[in-house]
């Protein structure tokens, strides 16, 4: 029942099965060369070797979810009248997100501010979030593109997690962060881990020291450079406008709502949208406030590093997980772009298009 536990590596599967006794466990599963979060079943192979290709965001905020189903029915008494019957989706089973990284767990806290900590909370996300326990694995070191320490996180950050696990001698040192986490620690499979605490702390510090910080301390975003079309045109020229960066992001939460209707029945679904797509915020009138690629890209960077922090006491809506860099088809590096914006010597004139109009 200690707050400090230990789990030998070979008992991971057993641990996940214990967590799954009364909950759906979402774990990083190896499929070919891909690691992706799946609802755990015994035929799946869990991999904690590297961060998964996808964040676990979808476990609480699914890529596509049914908000309600509807059915049109004819009124027998007045046949020209159609009634519609609505049924809201209220099925939110207990769940565990297992094996995400600290950046992944922190991602949920970014979404919480928008979907939960507001007077118009989103019932779907809120209920799922309440019913989910987050067991996070700290990173042993950085991976390609990672920059969590640059955005106030770290490879052993506890923010958003209920339990954190650190790799030590042949197993994991576990620490409860919240009351929900303490419940996990009371599972009989967890051994006493007090003797590993010092080693885990050392491992965490070593990992933290190895992560790059691409931004100068306390630097603010230059509004002049942010407003420069030349700057964005230059840094975004190579972008192919796909949605990989946003769909792999642990904090992106923009969505679209569509009615998927058959003849008399259908569902209203909410699915992830991406500001990288041309259709994003396309208005019914046909007007598109962000018709150019660079305007949409600026929205992504601005949302994470400017608009969101302005609204939520300086909190940055990026956890530095590095996926958007690692998996970008053309290696666009958001940390490089924000680095330019935060450079105290930033000067829009340096980016002026000398030979051509780069805004396409």
């Amino acid at each position: 029942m200690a707050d400090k536990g230990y789990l030998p590596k070979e008992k991971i599967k057993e641990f996940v099965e214990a967590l799954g006794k009364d909950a759906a466990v979402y774990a990083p599963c190896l499929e070919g060369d891909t690691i992706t979060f799946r609802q755990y079943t015994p035929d799946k192979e869990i991999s904690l070797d590297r961060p998964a290709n996808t964040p676990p965001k979808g476990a609480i905020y699914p890529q596509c979810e049914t908000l309600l189903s509807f059915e049109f029915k004819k009124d027998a008494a007045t046949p020209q009248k159609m009634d519609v019957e609505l049924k809201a989706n209220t099925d939110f089973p207990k769940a565990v997100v297992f094996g995400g990284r600290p950046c992944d767990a922190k991602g949920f806290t970014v979404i919480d501010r928008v979907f939960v900590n507001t007077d118009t909370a989103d019932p779907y996300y809120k209920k799922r979030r309440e019913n989910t326990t987050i067991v996070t694995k700290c990173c042993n070191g950085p991976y390609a593109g990672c920059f969590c320490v640059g955005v106030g996180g770290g490879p052993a950050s506890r923010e958003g997690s209920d339990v954190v696990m650190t790799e030590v001698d042949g197993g994991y040192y576990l620490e409860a962060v919240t009351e929900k986490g303490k419940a996990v620690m009371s599972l009989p499979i967890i051994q006493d881990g007090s003797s590993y605490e010092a080693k885990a702390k050392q491992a965490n510090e070593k990992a933290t020291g190895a992560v790059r910080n691409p931004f100068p301390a306390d630097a603010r975003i230059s509004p002049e450079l942010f407003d420069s079309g030349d700057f964005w045109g230059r840094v975004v020229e190579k972008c192919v406008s796909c949605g990989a960066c946003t769909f792999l992001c642990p904090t992106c939460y923009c969505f679209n709502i569509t009615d998927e209707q058959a003849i008399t029945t259908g569902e209203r679904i909410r699915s992830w949208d991406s500001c990288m797509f041309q259709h994003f915020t396309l208005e019914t009138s046909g007007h598109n406030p962000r018709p150019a690629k660079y305007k949409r890209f600026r929205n992504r960077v601005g949302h994470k590093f400017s608009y969101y922090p302005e609204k939520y006491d300086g909190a940055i809506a990026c956890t530095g997980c590095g996926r958007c860099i690692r998996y970008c088809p053309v290696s666009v590096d958001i940390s490089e772009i924000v680095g330019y914006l935060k450079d105290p010597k930033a000067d829009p004139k340096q980016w002026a298009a000398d030979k051509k109009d780069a805004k396409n």
Partner: protein
Amino acid sequence: MSTQKLKEIIKQVLPDVETVICWQEGYDKLNVTPIFITSPEQVDQVVWNPLCAQNLASYLPSQKKKVAVAVKGCDSRTIVQYMQEGLIDRNNVVIIGIPCKGTVSKKKVQKAIGNEPVEEVTFTDDAIKVKTPSGEKTLALADVCPTKCTSCQFPTPIVYDQLTGDAIKSDKPPESVYADVVELEGKTLEERKAYFASQFDKCIRCYACRNACPMCVCQDSCIAETRDPHWITQRNSLDEKVMFHMIHALHLAGRCVECGECERVCPMEIPVAKLKKKINKEMKDLFDYTPGVNPEDKPPMYTFNVDEAKIKEHKL
């Protein structure tokens, strides 16, 4: 080394064009990223090595002015296909051809080095040396190249204005191009269905494959996304994912230049090029046509013969 020659050529053509599209070092030593050169000072940043896998020709249709582009043999097929389909004005493109002995798949290297951060990368004639915190690893290029390089028929660009080195002849047998498709064809329908289901199930509908595809010309009007008409639902079920990939593949029938971009960019590591290669193989059998090889050719789906030699018509 041809990097020097490449830089010389860029400096030479730059005054005549608005932009030169080439590669430069990316966010770490294992990554290169496109560079759009508009001034001579940028030329020093140019790199050419087996990591330059990206097909830069894909940027051409969106360029409004005269540009120069660096292309490998495989990439040059994109330009040929663009010419066949009237998607670019050849007079507005200066093609800098690079004879290429094969590229490297970043994903394969990362896997081989246990996904450790990369500190240094160097190349020898047939190997890549990667330095990580736990030591140096030497990997044979043949072991970490993308599938397309194992059967490359066009190591030297088909069209070019300047060449950075001596032309290279392919040493790969032509029948090796579709070896992976033939292997797949040998499986039963059920096996093939299970294979594609397990692969496409990983799709996150980010459309990286579509947007990186040089021949995907619908782009913003793609039926996978249009709201009006609402052709495909936004659900993320396997059916919807397969539907999108089938549409992508069918729209490329006899047009896919097999540059492998769709597969290279997939963040979920789905072998998305397989469907397209299968269709290309069928097109080759039916019309004896290879996309992106001869600028004078007409793509078979752009035309028809009243009597197709290998298509049995329904005779009423």
